[in-house]
């Protein structure tokens, strides 16, 4: 849907950006500022990333320190014994929720970025190979994709994590395994479309090697939909990570993660709303921001979408 566009138009945008790179960046920047939601998304993500990176400096308290005498303190109130200010309250173990949210941002963003960073290149490479080689390589890769899509992902992830054991590394691995298919499918479609394009035939005619055609001519032209996919992929990876952590199969305590915090809160829903509301808001704001940016990117990069 979002990924279909004509190779001709893509080739045009690529060559345009080569000749006038500076104005290109400026144009993107202006287009971003014109879209209020995308700007808001960017601002939220930048704030979160900065907070995540400088967590030890920003977080008011140690995210794992349990102040046993001050459990379930409401937001914006001070502890009775320690006089510590809890901006977002404390959790059932007396830990400061704001600090845990900030440290949790580290985990969520890091895992999101890492899993996309693994799955996108793998998927793109698979898609290039499948689209260009046809014959058996194509068949093998695409049937592999079919089989993988035959599972609800969460179930496959659960099964794998349960065997390998839950850890941050395994989580990234599992998320990456789940992610590659969509890139491969879209890139393959692009390559199939491009095979007969004149600029590819021209490249053949002047004697370009196959790998040159693949990586210098075709790859850049598949990038437009891939950039959009990466953005939405990041959003779904963050959601999946939080789901798995919520089920107890993701990030393991005591490392704070948003999904894990929600899992801890389940028995306290009726007593302390903030414990279950706040981590969810954090997840939703992050995913929403990424989606705002994704929508904007898709509209900007895909000429067909723009006409609508």
């Amino acid at each position, binding site marked *: *849907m979002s990924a279909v566009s004509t190779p001709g138009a893509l080739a045009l945008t690529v060559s345009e950006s080569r000749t006038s790179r500076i104005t290109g960046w400026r144009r993107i920047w202006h287009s971003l500022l014109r879209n209020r939601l995308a700007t808001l998304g960017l601002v939220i993500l930048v704030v979160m990333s900065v907070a995540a990176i400088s967590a030890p400096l920003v977080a008011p308290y140690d995210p794992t320190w349990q102040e046993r005498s001050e459990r379930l303190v409401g937001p914006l109130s001070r502890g009775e014994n320690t006089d510590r200010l809890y901006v977002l309250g404390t959790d059932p173990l007396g830990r400061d929720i704001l600090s845990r949210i900030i440290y949790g941002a580290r985990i969520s963003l890091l895992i999101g970025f890492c899993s996309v960073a693994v799955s996108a290149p793998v998927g793109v490479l698979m898609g290039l190979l499948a689209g260009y080689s046809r014959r058996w390589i194509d068949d093998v890769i695409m*049937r*592999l994709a*079919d*089989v993988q899509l*035959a*599972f*609800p*992902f*969460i*179930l*496959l992830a*659960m*099964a*794998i*994590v*349960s*065997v*390998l054991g839950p850890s941050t590394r395994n989580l990234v691995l599992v998320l990456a395994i789940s992610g590659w298919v969509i890139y491969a499918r879209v890139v393959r479609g692009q390559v199939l479309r491009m095979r007969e394009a004149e600029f590819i035939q021209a490249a053949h005619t002047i004697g370009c090697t196959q790998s040159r055609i693949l990586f210098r001519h075709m790859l850049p032209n598949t990038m437009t939909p891939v950039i959009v996919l990466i953005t939405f992929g990041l*959003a779904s990876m963050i*959601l999946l990570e*939080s*789901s798995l952590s*919520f*089920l*107890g*199969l993701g990030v393991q305590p005591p490392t704070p993660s948003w*999904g894990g915090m*929600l899992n801890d*809160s*389940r028995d306290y*829903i*009726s007593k302390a*709303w903030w414990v*279950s*509301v706040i*981590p*969810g808001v954090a*997840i*939703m704001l992050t*995913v*929403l921001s990424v*989606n*705002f940016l994704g*929508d904007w990117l898709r509209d900007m990069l895909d000429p067909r979408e723009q006409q*609508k």
Partner: protein
Amino acid sequence: MVQFIIRRLFLSIFVILGVTIVVFAVVRLSGDPTGLMISPDASAEDVAALRHEMGFDRSIPLQFWDFAKGAVRGDFGDSLRYREPAFSLVTERLAATMKLTVAALTIAICVAIPAGVISAVKRNSIWDRLAMFFALFGQSMPVFWFGILLILIVSVQLQWLPSSGSNGPRSLILPAVTLGLYSTARITRLVRSEMIETISQDFVRTARAKGLRDRVVLYRHAFRNALIPVVTVIGIEAGGMLGGAVITETVFAWPGIGQLAVRAIFNRDYPLVQAIVFTIACIFVLINLLVDVLYAYLDPRVKLA
């Protein structure tokens, strides 16, 4: 048409074979599965006995052959925890999950299609903006958190509906709304964009030029054509809900296979895990097959591709 169905059927069988290999392989990812099934302080003889009993001391292709033979007949061995055939545990709970999924899908379709059509027809109106705003939220909200919020507001604060279990239709409402949220959002957005695209096409203009009334043009001409890709996505969503059910059932203590799956995984009950994953994958493949056939029926151009 027949040829198309046969070709798709072959593909489905191939995919199920692949699924069988994956389900078989997952448990062997860590090497020797006996280590996963027995307590760490078991004696070497016990381990060897279990290995022999489970057939793990034979060659991998032979083991796979036995596993595949069993899988076809629904025989995955006994659940390590419940000491019952794993497959019958799955079938017992399948109905609950189906009920939940069908309810969620019904909600999604009943909300999303009108919302999408209205958004497209009254583009940039306040309704359109509201619908798109909620759709974006729906797609960005973690399923389990939405469920928790519903429990917090509807069950704890207002005390309107029960927060867990499955006693009567009232207890179905919250889990179904939770599970349906993401699909509702996705289908709304899709219906809107498809409708906008069909409305701008030539045949719709022709229909208008013929002097047909707006309503006829909209529902007879535009809507029917916009529906084709929507059917595919509804199928994909139906399959996806089987995965979402795992989380929803956990939040609401709904006694379906999702909840069973989570327990089986925590108990390291591998025969049960295999039975669940295999069953869900088969249902999933079946839904996809149905959707493809339906798609080809709705849009005859597909068969030629």
